[in-house]
């Protein structure tokens, strides 16, 4: 399997039989989408937007998953500091 980024683009392009330029365009779209989701979740956790707006922007499942993660991390930090 390809390891290098350029090799991976070539391998995906060959496997899907689409031009490398199209693979790069899709990668950019997905990358921006991931960064957008991170931004929305960060704003939600920092109380800059409310829960309903966060759900509207990135979906209920992502918001609920993030809430579970946040509870786990907060619990871990408190335990680590006080155990």
């Amino acid at each position, binding site marked *: 399997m390809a390891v290098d980024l350029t090799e991976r683009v070539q391998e995906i392009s060959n496997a899907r039989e689409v031009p490398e330029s199209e693979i790069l365009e899709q990668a950019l779209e997905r990358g921006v989408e991931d960064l957008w989701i*991170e931004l929305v*979740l*960060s704003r939600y*956790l*920092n109380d800059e937007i409310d829960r309903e707006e966060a759900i509207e922007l990135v979906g209920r499942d992502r918001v609920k*998953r*993030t809430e*579970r*993660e*946040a509870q*786990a*991390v*907060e*619990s*871990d*930090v*408190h*335990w*680590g*500091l*006080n*155990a």
Partner: protein
Amino acid sequence: MIVAVADAGPIIHLDEIDALRHLSVVDILLIPQTVYEELEAGTIPPALADTEYDLLEAGEKCQERNADLDPGETAALTIADERNATLLTDDLDARNVAQNADIEVHGSIGIIVLAFSRNELSRSEAIEQMRSLQTETSLFVTEAVVEQGIELLEEEP
């Protein structure tokens, strides 16, 4: 005294950032035989040899546990319940099952913070390792969640 039972998650994730030694901050570390066999199916992290732990078989209650969890998580949960120990897992479903059974449960981030509070790590090293858990390991955790945890650590005098 902290007695803790680890499933494969924290062992793998801490090893991925060369921080497996922090598992030694718990006073007694237990690893279920099933978890050890799961690790063996890949590669046992060499750094585990430098960590003191006891291998244990889970008892009969193991069969009654939640079917959504994998065998290693189930064995770790059972031993934690039997021994009144803390469960160490990074799996959110396993954490839920443990909390519903009144078993104390924490994960890799908790171990890093515990290493900090026991002077095994500086605050900046702990923060760096928390970020590395998110960026360099197979653990899935949202970046903003880790940053929120770091803020809590930074607030500590």
